[in-house]
């Protein structure tokens, strides 16, 4: 009887070390490294007139101070444009240290290296930077007005304008019996992992190698960039991602200035150098997201069926565009959701502002798109007096309509084609879970007690598992341990566990014998990174394919040793055996020995692989042609396009009209990410996503003042929810397999956050009886809206 690991609630491999304080996060090593502090701009927009470091030179323990003038060669150039796009006509990236001008509060101007961080900060405090302030462009309205420019050579503050169209939306709307037109908006937020960024670098002069540990979502990305900028051979740069205390998107940006400056200082000084971001730095220098404003026109028939949708939106990209226009492309292409669209037009303008650069934060443009689509469907229901769930049902793509081709280009440059799903079943599931059909009575009963309840619903489709590829390496060692490596990184998703589960099933071993390494370029040099809910789909499939190769090789070698037909063999509990006859078997550990012809035995077991151990076939070389020594294999998974997960959230809220307080009474989630590798971990991802969704709807926003100061750059003022603010969601699963990959799986990492604002806006609107057209919403804002409504 073979144990099935896929689909089980297996406890995590990671937890032993994380629960005992034995995790290795970035700042848990390098205790003797030099410390780094940065002098960062206090101005949103200014010309640098001078940098006086004289006073800093007196600080005991100071090792070096660097400004842009000190940076050699390509280190003095702007950092790479990571994702170019033909429509990104005016890309701008920052210098590692500001060159003459700063474009947001927090932009690094000088780097101080000292014996430790305390002393580095002492010295940084004594550096005097002269600034000539320039007008700051803050917010989309100001950027659109182009009264002032962020970059003098970027007209209108416009980085990019893009349009995509399916059919002829404007004509369809013109001919529609009903038309609605309105504006929506969503504000800025940020990933805010509990562990900030950090870099630790060591130059090994003897080996001429640079070893970088960085809290990143892409170690191979950092390595490629550093090798390229420094002119080093790829093999001379090792990038290792240690345990990472959360990423949520912001750590996929690379190289951050610190990721080139710290290694450069380490090499220049011949000393270990480490920088660990503090919380203020995280707020003003790790990337943000979410700021968009939308104008919507929708045409529909008497039944609420959408005939044409035309959306124009403006995206706040912050000071620079290292990540190109991926965010607004995702908004534009995921906005259609689970609905059948025949005529859809979307156009966006990506605008520079003097604020921190925007790149993906969990959800990555989808929460905004979902907000637009779901608010639109709610308005259709209201206009026609139809049940909001019913309007959705009438517009859903049917289960028999897959693959569903939107005729558009997705964020990965591939066609936007939904691969599979069962949206009506998800809708029925979430209605049941939240008690949609019985809610009218519940509301009435509450109203009789003077309480105002409301219900909302929001649907989303998420393109997950985007390419280009990931790889996996599976190696059965002669001790029976199965060593697995993949290049992408982990930030708490439990990859060591789920990848072990996959390998355990493929190889017929116990998952506890499988050891997974992620994000270490020494172990797997080809990879892309962890983003876009892609790790399980991409690396999971690559590892499964590699494990299948290992399995085939193990059976071939064992068949020879057992003098049995390969098709009669199975692997169970780590033994390759004649099916149903465990007495005729050979452990995988011994197969690993036999797979590697030896001159020199290293143990008693290894003697079996030496040259005099068994009569050789004189005509066959010890390693036959097309074979390799070792019981190991490497394989890659590269999908033709993304696989699309989907889900729906529903919430019941109570609104206190006297205070504007919103209480989330129930929160229901039905989610379809295909077969679940580990339901416990998927549910954990949903819990965390829902918490971030609720946070983004009710609590979190980045409050810039008109001068471009981030007024709430601390956990005292940025309202990240505690336990008391987060509901416990009820969760239902559907498991519609993807036809695109061998395991049939879809991504689950970001889904939980996507519909939060849309769902709660709908529920609050329903409870309070006021229009909610921008999120987040605070109690004072809601109270004011209720007051306005009452006053009219």
């Amino acid at each position: 009887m073979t144990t099935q690991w896929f689909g089980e609630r297996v406890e995590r491999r990671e937890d032993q070390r994380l629960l005992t304080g034995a995790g290795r996060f970035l700042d848990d090593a390098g205790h003797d490294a030099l410390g780094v502090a940065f002098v960062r701009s206090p101005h949103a927009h200014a010309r640098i007139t001078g940098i006086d470091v004289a006073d800093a030179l007196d600080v005991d323990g100071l090792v070096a101070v660097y400004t842009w003038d000190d940076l050699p060669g390509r280190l003095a150039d702007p950092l790479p444009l990571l994702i170019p796009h033909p429509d990104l006509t005016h890309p701008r990236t920052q210098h590692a240290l500001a060159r003459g001008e700063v474009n947001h509060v927090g932009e690094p101007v000088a780097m101080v290296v000292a014996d430790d961080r305390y002393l580095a900060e002492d010295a940084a405090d004594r550096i005097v930077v002269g600034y000539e302030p320039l007008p700051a462009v803050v917010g989309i309205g100001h950027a659109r007005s182009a009264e002032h420019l962020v970059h003098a050579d970027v007209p209108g503050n416009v980085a990019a304008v893009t349009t995509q169209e399916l059919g002829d939306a404007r004509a369809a709307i013109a001919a529609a019996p009903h038309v609605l037109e309105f504006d929506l908006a969503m504000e800025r937020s940020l990933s805010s992992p509990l562990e900030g960024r950090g870099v630790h670098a060591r130059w090994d002069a003897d080996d001429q190698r640079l070893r970088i540990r960085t809290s990143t979502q892409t170690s191979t990305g950092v390595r490629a960039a550093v090798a390229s900028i420094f002119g080093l051979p790829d093999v001379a740069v090792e990038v290792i991602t240690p345990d990472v205390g959360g990423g949520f998107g912001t750590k996929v940006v690379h190289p951050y200035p610190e990721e080139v400056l710290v290694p450069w200082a380490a090499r220049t000084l011949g000393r270990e150098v480490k920088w660990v971001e503090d919380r203020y730095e995280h707020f003003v220098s790790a990337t943000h997201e979410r700021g968009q404003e939308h104008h919507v026109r929708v045409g529909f028939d008497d039944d609420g069926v959408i005939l044409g949708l035309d959306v124009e939106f403006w995206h706040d990209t912050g000071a620079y565009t290292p990540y190109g226009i991926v965010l607004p492309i995702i908004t534009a292409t995921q906005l259609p959701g689970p609905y059948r669209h025949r005529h859809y037009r979307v156009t966006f303008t990506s605008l520079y502002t003097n604020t921190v650069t925007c790149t993906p934060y969990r959800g990555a443009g989808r929460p905004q798109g979902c907000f637009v689509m779901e608010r639109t469907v709610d308005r259709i229901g209201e206009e026609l007096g139809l049940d909001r769930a019913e309007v959705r049902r009438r517009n859903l793509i049917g289960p028999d309509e897959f693959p569903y081709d939107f005729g558009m280009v997705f964020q990965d440059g591939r066609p936007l084609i939904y691969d599979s799903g069962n949206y009506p079943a998800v809708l029925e599931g979430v209605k049941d879970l939240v008690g949609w059909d019985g809610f009218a009575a519940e509301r009435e009963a509450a109203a009789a007690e003077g309480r105002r309840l409301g219900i909302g619903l929001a649907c989303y489709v998420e393109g997950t598992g985007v390419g280009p590829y990931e790889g996996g390496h599976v190696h059965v060692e002669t001790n029976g341990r199965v060593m697995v490596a993949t290049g992408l990184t982990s930030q708490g998703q439990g990859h060591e566990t789920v990848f072990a589960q996959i390998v355990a099933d493929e190889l017929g071993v116990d998952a506890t014998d499988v050891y997974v390494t992620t994000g270490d370029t020494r172990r797997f040099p080809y990879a892309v990174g962890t983003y876009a809910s892609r790790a399980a789909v991409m690396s999971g499939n690559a590892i499964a394919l590699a494990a299948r190769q290992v399995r085939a090789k193990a059976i071939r070698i064992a068949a020879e040793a057992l003098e049995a037909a390969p098709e009669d063999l199975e692997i169970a509990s780590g033994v390759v055996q004649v099916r149903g006859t465990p007495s005729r078997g050979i452990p995988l550990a011994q197969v690993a020995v036999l797979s590697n012809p030896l001159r020199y035995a290293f143990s008693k077991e290894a003697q079996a692989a030496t040259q005099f151990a068994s009569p050789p076939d004189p005509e066959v070389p010890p390693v036959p042609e097309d074979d390799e020594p070792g019981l190991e294999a490497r394989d890659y998974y590269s999908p033709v396009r993304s696989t699309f997960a989907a889900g729906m959230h529903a919430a019941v809220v109570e609104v206190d009209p006297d205070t504007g307080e919103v209480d989330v009474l129930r929160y229901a989630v039905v989610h379809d990410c295909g077969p679940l590798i580990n339901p416990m971990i998927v549910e954990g991802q949903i819990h965390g996503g829902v918490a971030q969704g609720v946070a983004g709807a009710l609590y979190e926003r980045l409050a810039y003042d008109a001068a471009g100061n981030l007024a709430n750059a601390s956990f005292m003022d940025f309202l990240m929810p505690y336990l008391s603010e987060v509901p416990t969601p009820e969760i239902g699963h559907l498991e519609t397999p993807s036809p695109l990959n061998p395991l049939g799986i879809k991504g689950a990492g970001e889904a939980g956050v996507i519909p939060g604002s849309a769902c709660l806006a709908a529920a609050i609107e329903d409870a309070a009886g006021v229009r909610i057209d921008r999120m987040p919403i605070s109690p004072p804002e809601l109270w004011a809206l209720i007051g306005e409504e009452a006053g009219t």
Partner: protein
Amino acid sequence: MSEVVRAPSPHDLHEVVVTVNGVTRSARVPARRLLSDLLRHDLRLTGTHVGCEHGVCGACTVLLEGEPVRSCLTFAVMVDDARITTVEGLAGPDGELGPVQRAFRECHGLQCGFCTPGFLLLTTELLARNPEPTDGEIADALGGNLCRCTGYVNIVRSVRRAAELTSEREPPS
């Protein structure tokens, strides 16, 4: 003859002797050194994590004489002669997980693990004074620490489970 009294300097070192997880340790530190840095960098007990350095997130929580404190808001010199428990002190001598740790593993009460030490210590302290906490009491005890991964759902479940495991281990006499 008068003695010249030198003004104290922020760089002067002070001897701190502290008992951490039952082991007496000492270090010479400047007055401004944080307890979190003493533990992490001087004593190399890196299980205590620093999430915000302004006392809001609670990742750096340790027990000082059995009471939870934020080690990022505590100076190292303040704990001279004190008794401290960190996450490294929660497992058995052979590395076997304690009941609170086992509960968090069983209930998936952690994801990235960065905030986890703070929650483990708060839970340990809660169950020491209140072996059967209600959900409201759990929320009171843990409601001042931030987690960005779990949405707290499985942290609360872990605390309930830890209470069960603790009472199994220590049957009422």
